[in-house]
């Protein structure tokens, strides 16, 4: 049973998320502050976290940055009444899975989590397949699959990283561009940094 955490200072919202997710069979824990959630994450990692941007003390963006720094492996869905382009952009730059605006319906929550879990599974599976092809030196096929990945996950750093792996043998400069793009999207992607360094391209 997937574990869901909800971080929101509004009790009504926490209760709504709990009701909706429990009715779908998820195990749910809710927190009023980011600090409480981080403490719980240290003990037990969830599969998905619903997180508000406006929180007392540590805000949602800081929370996501902290989660990224610690390289936890779960998806984050932001739920917020802050709908400015800047807020949405900065959240997506941190690699969140979805952004839901308040007020939301239970159906929106269900659709979002389903999509996130499905998309995560699919992205990881396809990435593994591409890396296997690169290891087997089947670069042409790997490039084809990576192009499809760009189309399906334009916001993800992975297609750039994988394209970097595909290109690094024959076109190191192009590969370097892809690794830099991957780092720009997700600056916690240490593998991309290591690959870029190993290329030695200015």
């Amino acid at each position, binding site marked *: 049973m997937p574990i869901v955490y909800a971080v929101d200072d509004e009790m*009504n*919202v926490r*209760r*709504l998320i709990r*009701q909706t997710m429990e009715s779908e069979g998820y195990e749910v824990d809710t927190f009023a502050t980011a600090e409480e959630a981080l403490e719980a994450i240290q003990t037990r990692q969830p599969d998905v976290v619903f997180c508000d941007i406006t929180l007392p003390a540590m805000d949602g963006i800081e929370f996501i940055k902290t989660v990224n720094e610690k390289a936890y492996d779960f998806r984050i869905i932001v739920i917020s*009444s802050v709908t400015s382009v800047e807020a949405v952009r900065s959240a997506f730059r941190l690699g969140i899975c979805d952004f839901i605006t*308040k*007020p*939301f*319906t*239970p*159906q929106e929550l269900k659709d979002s989590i389903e999509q996130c879990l499905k998309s995560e599974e699919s992205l990881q599976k396809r990435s593994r397949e591409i890396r296997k092809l690169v290891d087997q030196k089947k670069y042409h096929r790997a490039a084809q699959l990576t192009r499809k990945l760009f189309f399906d996950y334009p916001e993800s750093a992975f297609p750039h990283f994988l394209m970097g792996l595909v290109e690094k043998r024959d076109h190191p400069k192009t590969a370097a561009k892809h690794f830099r793009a991957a780092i720009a999207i997700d600056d916690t992607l240490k593998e991309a940094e290591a690959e870029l360094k190993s290329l030695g391209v200015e």
Partner: protein
Amino acid sequence: MAIIKGTVKKKEYYIVIIGCGRLGSRIASLLSSQGHSVVVVDRDEDALQALSYEFSGFTILGEATELDTLKNAKLDKADIALVLSPDDNTNIMIALVAKEYFSTPRVIARAYDPSNLEVFSQFGIEIICPTLLAVESIKEALEIAGDES
């Protein structure tokens, strides 16, 4: 009976309630406890704070006569709008905006003055008139009393 006439009955409706007075707050708690998505709009923060513990929907602090407030409440997504401010003229105005601008499928407004009923019904807005309801209740009570005597 389906909660929205002429449409397929849904399990959960998205309901926007304008006005968080005695009626609005009670209806909000009732509907949210039934599993509907409820958004309550009021300009009075204290009124929103006073919503009962059972209420599990959203609150929007703002003037419902302003378009931005209604947009924030996502009235364009609503299945039902309940317009329950204490002023008939305000209710007419908001109910019309809900019906005509946001195309809310079902709009129910409160009108204290029975002479306003015609204005509402011209635009396909359903009306709850406390005055007429009271008249009906009193009439019924008197009839019962008459039967008993």
